[in-house]
């Protein structure tokens, strides 16, 4: 549905939009040039993330460790088959694959948001241009050139978000292709990354709930909408089980403790206070875990699951999961105030990521910004510094312009206000649903890798506000 005749821009909005589009064009061109330069400088370099080395090893050996799932290792393995021809440059194939998948998913995400949330028609071709800007935002681009599932998982999450939005706007609330894509996304996320899966499930569940509520409010019952909601709920229950069966079918290398949510809580609730908490542990724990083993744990997080976690599991396999949970519970009880304070601070950071990134780029703060940034600038520190600052400052500028345009459009097109507020609400809720699981199961420090979906939503909101439908 295109913008209606009586919703035409007034003069102020028209010029504001023109200026905003021009700023986007100027910033976008610079960003894309720097992104390409950075990619060329990076070449076939593999950024030094710990998980990358594990995924590569898993791909070579055809195994999983239960934590880093087999889906992404399969993608790596497929490209490794080309090693004979491409030698070590096969990683470039992986990077290009990630960029391509992201580009198309972001384009679809942007297009669906524009069409179904903001009633602005846009072709896929134009949406690809906007997607080109989104994918070259430095922290997003960094993940395209990393041997990590983050790029593909973000793309799948965006795709799922897009299809849900399509369902909200679809005629009679039913769209089979969208439902199929949602199903495939959930299944793939289930074999790629658990934390992204949890977010996807939350979004699909809330999406089904929204469709049901809308149906209840209407005077007639639309069977197709009810069918959609039902299929979503079935997908949420059945597909993760299928994914878990696939995960379990992959040989486990036994290098890590068995994955469980309780063990996954350790990153936030046990690290880095394991040694400090030790005197408060029950005998059940201290009988298995000697104090000296906890002494260097605040230095090496990764020491937990492939050493301490395994130690506990080998000593008491039946109760290992409950022991992990007990340790997490004790950790929370002892440091409740600090943990809640930290969690609230991080949550605010992820929700308002354009401004949080400015804080971490220019100010001291206890985060993983430096850690991730140093992985990124391995090949060319100077170029990376320029690209990071230009790109993230540009992102903040676009976010601010987007807010201004959103307000300006809201004021000048009051009849669309309610729908726009609902769209904003859904976007904010989506950020929460996707980010919260990743945050809960991560260390208590702001990590911009967790905020990538928030980056996508912010920039999509900004660009849909700025974008003008052709008259």
């Amino acid at each position, binding site marked *: 549905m295109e913008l209606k005749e009586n919703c035409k821009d007034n003069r102020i909005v028209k010029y504001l939009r023109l200026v905003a589009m021009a*700023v986007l064009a100027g910033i976008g061109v610079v960003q894309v040039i720097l992104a390409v330069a950075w990619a060329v400088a990076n070449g076939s370099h593999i950024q030094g993330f710990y998980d990358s080395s594990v995924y590569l090893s898993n791909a070579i050996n055809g195994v999983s460790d239960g934590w880093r799932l087999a889906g992404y290792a399969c993608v790596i393995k497929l490209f490794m088959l080309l090693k004979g021809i491409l030698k070590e440059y096969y990683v470039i194939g992986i990077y290009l694959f990630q960029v391509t998948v992201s580009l198309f998913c972001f384009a679809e995400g942007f297009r669906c948001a524009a069409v179904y949330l903001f009633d602005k028609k846009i072709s896929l071709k134009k949406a690809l241009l906007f997607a080109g800007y989104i994918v070259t935002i430095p922290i997003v681009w960094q993940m395209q050139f990393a041997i990590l599932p983050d790029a593909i998982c973000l793309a799948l999450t965006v795709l799922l978000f897009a299809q849900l939005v399509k369902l909200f706007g679809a005629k009679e609330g039913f769209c089979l292709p969208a439902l199929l894509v949602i199903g495939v996304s959930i299944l793939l996320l289930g074999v790629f990354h658990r934390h992204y899966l949890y977010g996807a499930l939350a979004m699909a569940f809330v999406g089904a709930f929204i469709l049901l509520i809308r149906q209840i409010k209407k005077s007639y019952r639309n069977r197709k909408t009810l069918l959609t909601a039902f299929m979503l709920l079935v997908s949420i229950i059945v597909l993760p089980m299928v994914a878990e069966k696939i995960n379990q079918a992959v040989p486990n290398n036994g290098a890590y403790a068995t994955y469980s949510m309780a063990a996954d809580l350790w990153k936030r609730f046990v690290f880095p206070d394991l040694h400090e908490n030790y005197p408060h542990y029950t005998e059940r724990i201290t009988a298995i875990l000697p104090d000296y083993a906890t002494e260097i744990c605040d230095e090496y997080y*990764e020491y937990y699951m492939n050493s301490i976690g395994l130690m506990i599991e080998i000593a008491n396999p039946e109760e290992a999961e409950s022991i992990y949970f007990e340790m997490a519970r004790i950790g929370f009880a002892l440091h409740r105030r600090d943990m809640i304070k930290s969690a609230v601070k991080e949550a605010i950071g992820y929700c308002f990521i354009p401004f949080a990134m400015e804080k*971490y780029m220019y100010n001291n703060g206890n985060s993983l910004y430096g850690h991730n940034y140093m992985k990124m600038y391995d090949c060319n520190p100077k170029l990376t510094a320029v690209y990071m600052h230009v790109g993230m400052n540009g992102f903040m500028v676009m976010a601010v312009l987007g807010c201004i345009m959103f307000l300006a459009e809201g004021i000048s097109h009051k009849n669309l206000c309610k729908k726009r507020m609902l769209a904003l609400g859904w976007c904010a809720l989506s950020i929460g649903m996707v980010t919260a699981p990743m945050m809960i199961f991560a260390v208590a420090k702001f990590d911009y890798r967790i905020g990538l979906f928030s980056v996508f939503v912010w920039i999509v909101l900004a660009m849909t506000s700025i974008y003008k439908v052709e008259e």
Partner: protein
Amino acid sequence: MLKEKKEKIIFIGVAVLSAILILCTALIGTKKFYPVEVEAHKTQILFLGDSNIAYDFEGKDIPELVYDRLGVTTYNGAIGGTSAAKINTENYFDDRGDMFCLYNITKVMESGDHNAVADYYGTGSQREKEAVGKVMMLTDLRLEEVDYIVLSYGLNDYTTGRPIYAEDPYAEYTYAGALRAAVERLQKLCPNAKIILSSITYCVFMEGGEVVMDGYERNWGGGTIEEYRDAMKLVSSEYENVYFMDNLEYLGIGRDNYEQYLRDEMHLNEAGREIYVDYLEETINGIEGEL
């Protein structure tokens, strides 16, 4: 038509201005927050290294002694506990000392952006805060004006068993690889500087107050102190404008006289620092004489 032309002009003008302004923000990122005051016409010597350079323990540290002796401007960028090589792991939380190893420090210097390390240790220990302060100084120096860079690494590489060599000559987790990478990076950043690679110094290992072994005998996994010294000597021979200080040979510290020059098993005391500065002075005079 006029309207469209006007809009096009506005669009292009704003787009170009935005592009220029956003590029300028990169300068904020690399802005010199604390521009280092430089005395005109004085030789500038930058020290990078471990605790033997970083700390004064009692008395003055080596850069201060060099300042007194030679009347030059010195910058102490050394950070205690650091090695040349990175740890061979990409742990989610790298060892804190590793963040400031020579390999990483030179990259931070190249980026000019101290926030790569500053925010990582927002609530770190006093030592880490001091290290961040040093990094801020290093990113604020006008590197192209530095005359000498002294790289004094080896003890921590040795005691933590960092490998010396690997198949890849630039492997950052090896002592020789990290030195090569650092030398090349510093030569790009400071094209006019002479780089002095200052070798590992003598050390002993004690049990119950008695020396049981020294660095020539004990191998922590990477090699003996002699092997680390030889590796540094090899690297220095591969580059123009790079010189070598053989502290094992020249300082003359050994099992029979270590107590005179070491305050503990491996750190130089006041007398040790004096002979070190003697040697450095001689090295610099030799270089100046050559030139």
